[in-house]
């Protein structure tokens, strides 16, 4: 075979390439697929409704003269069933329920369960969103470092430095100001020394101590993933219980603790996405063009990695709501008199045969909302799965 033989094979046919694919924007395609998936769509509808209820709950139950006051105690009207009329003769004017009827009945102190449910909806919503927000931020950070910079090694001095600084910080918070301050000072001096060395002396130092300190141990990726494995080993609910028992009870502590114990899934997702995206040709092309690392991460990689994060966040909200309800049920949650669905349920369990609505109404609310979030999350996973949509 000679070279000239080949020429005939590559004569330009001159034919135009096929027509372009239909122009449908991503958002429209998403909406069309969502409409087709009935369960996910109803999940979204409940999700939106819950949002609306929680926001109106916040507005209507807070302030000095709320429209629905969840805190009014009417001992003469206790354990009234749902939809029962108030006995106007026994009540002061400000004690009369706004709707003129106990929509969800009253509890053992005569408080309006409807007002308490409204107040609790806001707690569930914020706990769900803030906890998942914290978890997603940590997850994207850790997963991003692990996925993009994961191959860089951790050196002996990094480990020592982290140990010294965290010990110093711990001592400082614990009250040992002198020891803590000294350790922090040592740590920051070493950081400045390393920066100075990197900046001003280009040559590798041959000192024995420095060489020992600069010995590579494991990669950043291995370190972060082992931390994730360790965190996953703890039974999370009991970890949260222990931490909450030690901390002063408040809504913010609960959100933070739930957030700090549920970032592992997101970390794994983001890492996995970035690992596969890093090998994608368009990322290689961006590197070859000389695009900066940060622009590659935030312009090219993270937008393409958001789909699984969104899915896990949606399902994470459901589990955060569930954890908060469980904590409130056990009495470790948001402190009374603030109502949450969990503590309404917990208060009502003593009267489950006399006043079943006290357990069933918050129970159903939790069930419906968690189910809606899970259905929507599952639907989102199907819709965002590129294998199920037309190839882009």
């Amino acid at each position, binding site marked *: *075979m*000679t070279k000239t033989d080949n020429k005939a094979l*590559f004569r*330009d046919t001159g034919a135009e390439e096929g027509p372009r694919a239909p*122009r449908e924007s991503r958002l429209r395609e998403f909406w069309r697929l969502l409409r087709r998936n009935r369960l996910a769509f109803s999940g979204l509808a409940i999700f939106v409704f819950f949002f609306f209820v929680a926001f109106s709950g916040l507005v209507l139950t807070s302030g000095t003269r709320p429209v629905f006051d969840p805190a009014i105690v009417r001992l003469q009207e206790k354990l009234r069933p749902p939809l029962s009329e108030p006995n106007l003769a026994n009540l002061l004017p400000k004690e009369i329920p706004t709707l003129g009827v106990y929509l969800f009945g009253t509890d053992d102190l005569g408080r309006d369960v409807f007002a308490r449910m409204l107040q609790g909806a806001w707690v569930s919503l914020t706990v769900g969103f803030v906890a998942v927000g914290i978890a997603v931020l940590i997850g994207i950070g850790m997963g991003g470092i692990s996925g993009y910079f994961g191959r860089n090694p951790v050196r002996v001095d990094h480990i020592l430095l982290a140990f010294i600084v965290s010990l110093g910080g711990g001592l400082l918070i614990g009250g040992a100001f002198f020891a803590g301050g000294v350790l922090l000072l040592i740590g920051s001096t070493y950081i400045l020394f390393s920066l100075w060395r990197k900046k001003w002396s280009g040559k590798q130092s041959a000192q024995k101590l420095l060489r020992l300190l600069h010995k590579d141990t494991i990669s950043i990726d291995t370190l972060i993933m082992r931390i994730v494995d360790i965190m996953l080993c703890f039974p999370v609910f009991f970890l949260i219980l222990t931490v909450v028992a030690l901390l002063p009870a408040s809504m913010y502590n609960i959100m933070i603790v739930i957030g700090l114990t549920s970032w592992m899934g997101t970390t794994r997702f983001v890492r996995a996405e970035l690992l596969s995206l890093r090998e994608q*040709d*368009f990322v290689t092309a961006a590197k070859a*063009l*000389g695009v900066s690392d940060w622009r590659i991460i935030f312009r090219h990689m993270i937008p393409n990695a958001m789909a699984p994060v969104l899915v896990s966040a949606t399902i994470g909200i459901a589990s955060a709501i569930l954890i908060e309800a469980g904590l409130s049920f056990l009495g470790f949650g948001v402190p009374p008199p603030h109502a949450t669905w969990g503590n309404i349920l917990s208060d009502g369990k003593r009267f489950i045969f006399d006043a079943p609505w006290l357990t069933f109404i918050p129970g159903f609310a939790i069930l419906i909302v968690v189910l809606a979030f899970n259905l929507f999350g599952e639907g989102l996973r199907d819709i965002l799965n590129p294998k199920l949509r037309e*190839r882009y």
Partner: protein
Amino acid sequence: MNEKSLAMKQINPAHTAMLKVEGLKKYFPVRKGFLQGVIGWIKAVDSVAFEIYQGKTLGLVGESGCGKSTIGRLILKLLEPDEGRIIYQGQDISGLSEEKIKPLRKEMQIIFQDPYGSLNPRMTAGQSIEEGLRTVGVKGRSERKAQVAHLLEMVRIGADAAGLYPHQFSGGQRQRIGIARALSVNPSLIICDEPVSALDVSIQSQIINLLKELQNTLGVSYLFISHDLNVVGYLSDTVAVMYLGHIMEYAPAEALYDKPLHPYTLALLSAIPAPEPDDRHQLPALVGDVPSPFNPPPGCKFQGRCPLVEDRCRKGEIKIYQVGDGHTVRCWKVVGK
């Protein structure tokens, strides 16, 4: 050194290599276990040397996994070579730090095999091309827009395509956008990493002719990586045949196709479907796959599949023999000793 070679290039461009690669090596560690300890090495690229001239094309052929693409990434400095020198316009770029390589990035660009993965699905064609214009410092939105339109015209797509997303294009069109993105920084060398392997034959010819045309008008050089000897033969001035990290035969295209010497080259050429049914193949087709590059036996890398293998092939490193003008072969049999 740099100025001298640049001056030489201006006097006699045809005789100074624009890119010269010497003794290039890249070994990948194989890791295992809880703490990811290294248990061995894969010699993806092993003592590779070649030259690319201004406005010329070097074809790099070989089966999957023989290290062709790794060479492309080493030249682009997307991977760091373990040994060897990459000399671009007289300057050794193999050891340069990230900051020092940045200004050289725009000199060398890459075109990929998979037209689906080579464009960011969340960016329009125009935005993808603009990324390159941004890095070379084209200021002003309208200026960039105009250049994007010009580049799209150059690859025969039409400027109105700038606002469309990758999923709205066909494979061939996406490949053209990839070429336009590579051209956006006005490079002097483009590494074509199997640019037509994923396309239909009719589209292949369009892309190949486009590449040829761009070479004629812009004077760019190509490192054309492919497993298709037909395509390589049509485009290349020089051809290097690779097997498991080694260059087995390196020759001007005419010489390689007319007088192939290495048993592996012969096997590859005889595997091309012949237009004439009467053409008899000189060698039986190769059987089996490329063996794993992990812990290969000593001696010739091709020993496991070579029809002419002898005892001597299994001992020691096989030398490279010069057999003609710019024609080298890594096989002792060609000199008959």
